[in-house]
């Protein structure tokens, strides 16, 4: 398939964009990565995702697909000759979707808020995130069946949904000076994180923690910057 048949609109720092990139890599799909400029949205982005105006957007042919987990499932369903991302078993698929939704609806929103929070609120958020990691450790034990990933021998849907968030987890730990992924409490996940980041489909698209820290400082500065007229 011609390279420019598949385009991905994204930002290097976005974990949601990373999900799409990992999935395309798993399927060995050639694609053109169109980097959006932070702070301004391209015409193409506004046209292809008028509802949310957010990345990632996968453009296949001339058809846009939005929302990271929808994109991952689309990639899995279209490129069937590559390794499967979701399980063939209906029940296992429901479990995989459940955990991805848990990460997006509960765990990641709590983790994101840690850095900006203080005092009791902060402690509550940290507790929530740590509790969530304990649940994920249990899930990992159950689903990996002794193998490297939630998906077994290969990266699967939960690995992608969770692993893409590791970069920002590390930023939170460093900048927030808090230990979240603890080898004493969640040894399985610590090992899994190393395997995930070392995987061929992930390595080239996982941003370095230091770069993410710089980026997050840049974002914070932008938010506090001189107000510009809204149009």
């Amino acid at each position, binding site marked *: 398939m011609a390279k420019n048949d598949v385009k991905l609109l994204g930002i290097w720092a976005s974990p949601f964009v990373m999900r799409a990139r990992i999935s395309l890599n798993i399927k060995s799909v050639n694609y053109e990565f169109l980097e959006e400029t932070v702070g301004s949205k391209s015409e193409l982005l506004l046209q292809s995702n008028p*509802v949310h105006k957010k990345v990632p957007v996968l453009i296949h042919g001339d058809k846009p697909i939005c929302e990271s987990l929808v994109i991952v499932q*689309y990639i899995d369903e279209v490129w069937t000759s590559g390794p499967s991302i979701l399980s063939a078993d209906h029940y296992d698929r429901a479990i995989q979707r459940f955990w991805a939704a848990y990460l997006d609806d509960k765990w990641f929103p709590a983790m994101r808020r840690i850095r900006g929070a203080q005092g009791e609120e902060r402690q509550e958020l940290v507790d929530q995130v740590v509790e969530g990691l304990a649940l994920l450790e249990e899930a990992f034990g159950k689903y990996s069946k002794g193998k490297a990933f939630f998906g077994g021998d290969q990266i699967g849907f939960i690995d992608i949904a969770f692993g893409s968030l590791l970069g920002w987890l590390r930023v939170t730990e460093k900048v927030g000076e808090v230990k979240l992924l603890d080898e004493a409490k969640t040894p399985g996940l610590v090992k899994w994180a190393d395997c995930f980041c070392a995987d061929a489909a992930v390595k080239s698209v996982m941003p370095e923690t230091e770069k993410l820290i710089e980026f997050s400082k840049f974002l914070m500065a932008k938010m506090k910057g001189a107000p510009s007229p809204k149009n």
Partner: protein
Amino acid sequence: MADEVVLLDFWPSMFGMRVRIALAEKGIEYEYKEEDLGNKSPLLLQMNPIHKKIPVLIHNGKPVCESLIIVQYIDEVWKDRSPLLPTDPYQRAHARFWADYVDKKVYEVSRKIWTSKGEEKEAGKKEFFEIFKTLEGELGDKPYFGAETFGFVDLSLIPFYSWFYAIETFGEFNMEAECPKIVAWAKRYLQKETVAKTLPDQKKVYEFVGQMRKRFGLE
């Protein structure tokens, strides 16, 4: 071996209604168990320990949680009849995107309207109209979101119809005047027996919401 299907649910829940409609569409026999959300059953806590919420589908003893995940599960297991999602991957992605939009937006904003007053309520209403305008845009001139027949997106949104009377009354506006296309779509969809039999009466939901408002000190 016959399938054993149990649904843990709560009658006014829009999320539970989605599952009930899906089961009705597929003609699946199941045991309905009404939960008292103020006093959750040990079964619910065991089957959904993480969220402790309904609906939960228990299929041959194994729980499936989260309404849209349950609907997809039902569609995949009982795939020999009444498909709920399209077969084409792009159409499926499109359906999932819009069902996700309904999930992210409609419930929250509806709740804002019936649980608040004054400025907050007005802000909620403004957002509500914007969201439904977007939905009307997506519906366009099609009879259903799923085009010729109803599908995943229709199913994800239709339960809100049973809440329209409550929301418009407490919100002090008229749904038909503000969102005529959506109301027309809903009435069209309600001609389906499976939907008409499944959705609770709007007045019953209104009374229920009234009681909840009293508990929140809004009445």
